[in-house]
């Protein structure tokens, strides 16, 4: 199954320890410390064009791992390679989508998408054309001149995804992008994301708290352990594509649901215990 030359992203033995501010400390395993290890020895290879979802209990470092792959944070140990090159800062080949949209409120929908091209020195005419095309692709033609606060949450996240795709990224990092949306909008956007992903074949790493979402979207679901996070198990999702919402009601889907939950349950329990033991934890 593994064809090493097809690996786009290779995460090797990543660890991340946060040093708290002077005077702050937390209780870890009954001992007071000013250092918190959130990732400990993460290994993961992601193939070109693959859709990976990351699930794990709160505090398992999913978002931190995404930041490291995105070049926004440095790992304390280990390294991440993108196409054989070590990542030390944001790579132009990578797009990032956040849970809270992170649109620039003073820019219109169109200008928000253009921003991604502007900072990369694309000419005005070309970036406007690209941005218009992307808005249309996401069903937002006619909303070019709306400011983010004039758009619904689902529309804002569509714009944010369009912005991340504007520079034609080879890797798309998504940090719980649909978590703030209502269930209907969420499922709608999952479908749209798969539709567009099917056209562009970008490698996607998608963090989520939802098992359903993880299974519905993914080629492989990566289950993380409780803090300090590591890869507990990788589950291949052999559901046919293209997928639509009906698949959630299928017997296979239910089996996957049970399987992922089975792997995750112990870690969630562990995490809950961890959090009750260290109420002072915050970062």
């Amino acid at each position, binding site marked *: 199954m593994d064809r090493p030359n097809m690996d786009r992203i290779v995460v090797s033995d990543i660890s991340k320890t946060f040093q708290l501010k002077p005077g702050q400390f937390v209780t870890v395993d009954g001992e007071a410390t000013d250092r918190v290890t959130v990732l400990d020895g993460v290994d993961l290879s992601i193939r070109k064009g693959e859709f990976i979802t990351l699930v794990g209990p709160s505090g398992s470092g999913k978002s931190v791992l995404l930041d490291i792959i*995105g070049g*926004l944070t440095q790992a304390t140990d280990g390294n991440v390679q993108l196409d054989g090159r070590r990542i030390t800062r*944001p*790579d*132009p080949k*990578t*797009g*990032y989508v*956040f849970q*809270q949209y*992170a649109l*620039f*409120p*003073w*820019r219109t929908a169109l200008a928000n998408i253009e*921003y*991604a091209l*502007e*900072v*990369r020195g694309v000419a005005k005419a070309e970036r406007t054309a690209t941005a218009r095309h992307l808005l249309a692709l996401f069903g937002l033609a006619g909303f070019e001149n*709306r*400011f*983010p*606060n*004039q*758009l*619904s949450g*689902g*529309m804002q996240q569509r714009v944010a995804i369009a*912005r991340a795709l504007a*520079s034609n990224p080879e890797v798309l*990092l998504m940090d719980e992008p649909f978590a703030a949306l209502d*269930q*209907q*909008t969420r*499922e*709608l956007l999952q*479908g749209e994301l798969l539709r567009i992903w099917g056209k562009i074949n970008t490698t996607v790493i998608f963090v989520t*708290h*939802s*098992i*359903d*979402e993880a299974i519905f979207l993914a080629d492989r679901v990566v289950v993380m352990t409780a803090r300090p996070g590591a890869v507990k198990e990788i589950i291949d999702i052999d559901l046919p594509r293209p997928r*639509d*919402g*009906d698949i*959630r*009601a299928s017997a296979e889907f239910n089996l996957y649901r049970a399987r992922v*939950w089975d792997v*995750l349950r112990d870690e*969630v329990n562990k995490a809950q215990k961890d959090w009750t033991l260290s109420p002072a934890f915050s970062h």
Partner: protein
Amino acid sequence: MAYLTEKFGSAGALHLLAGAGETVAAARVPAIKASAKIRSKKASRGTFLYGVPLLGLFFLLWEIAPRLGWLNRIFFPPLSEVLVAWWALLASGVLIEHIGISLQRAAIGFALGVVVAIPLGLLMGRYSLFEKVSDLLVQTLRNTSQFALLPVFILLLGIGEESKVAITFYSSVFFLLVNTISGVKSVDPLLIKAARSMGTSDFDLFRKVILPASIPSIVAGARLAVKSSLFAVIGAEMLAAKSGLGFLIQNSQLMMETADMYAGILTLTVIGLTVNYLLVWFERWATAWKGQSETSLI
């Protein structure tokens, strides 16, 4: 246990419905906002109308009190006499000249304040070491009265335009600086993270993210700064000048031409009201993206 509460299954038809519903709901949002805006505009016009009778009473008292001998007519001429004097000053071109010179002094000082305060504020807000080093000096200067420094400016820069520009600059720069710093500090870190994820350079981060995000705070500071530099120029002209509205008011008092003095004061009031109105309008325009901006007229 949120995992367990995830919804099981969903029909394709529901997707379509949800999609349509969402678009309609979203399209309705701006409409609601627009009507709210109209309502608030009506409300502020209403507030304005409510205020008219009391102001009218004030002007009426001003007219009749000197005529009835309640106030000394020499020190306090009736409003109608003041308006006549005002018209004469205007017709002779004297008033326009004084207005022009005062506004020019205030504007140059304010513009210099903008040029200095915004880049400095961006740096101080962004780099904590820079702020730590400079904060004490800024606080010290900020709490020194600009009028106390007027003699210093005159000693250093002479009695001419430079010392007036210096005092208006000094009066405006700290409002702009403090508000730029607080604007920069309150930029949503997520926006900076998003910008960095798209490969934004440090320079572009200032220009395209931190500066626009700080504009509401900077414009609020600019409103205070403009007022402050207008006040300062009047004060400076009263103390040491041969032209400007401050000089006109002060000189008219010395010459016992009290109608001219009040005409000068009224002119200042009108300028103050106009400038404030323009600034509120500018603030609304510059922060239109925030949706309903609840800026008071004060």
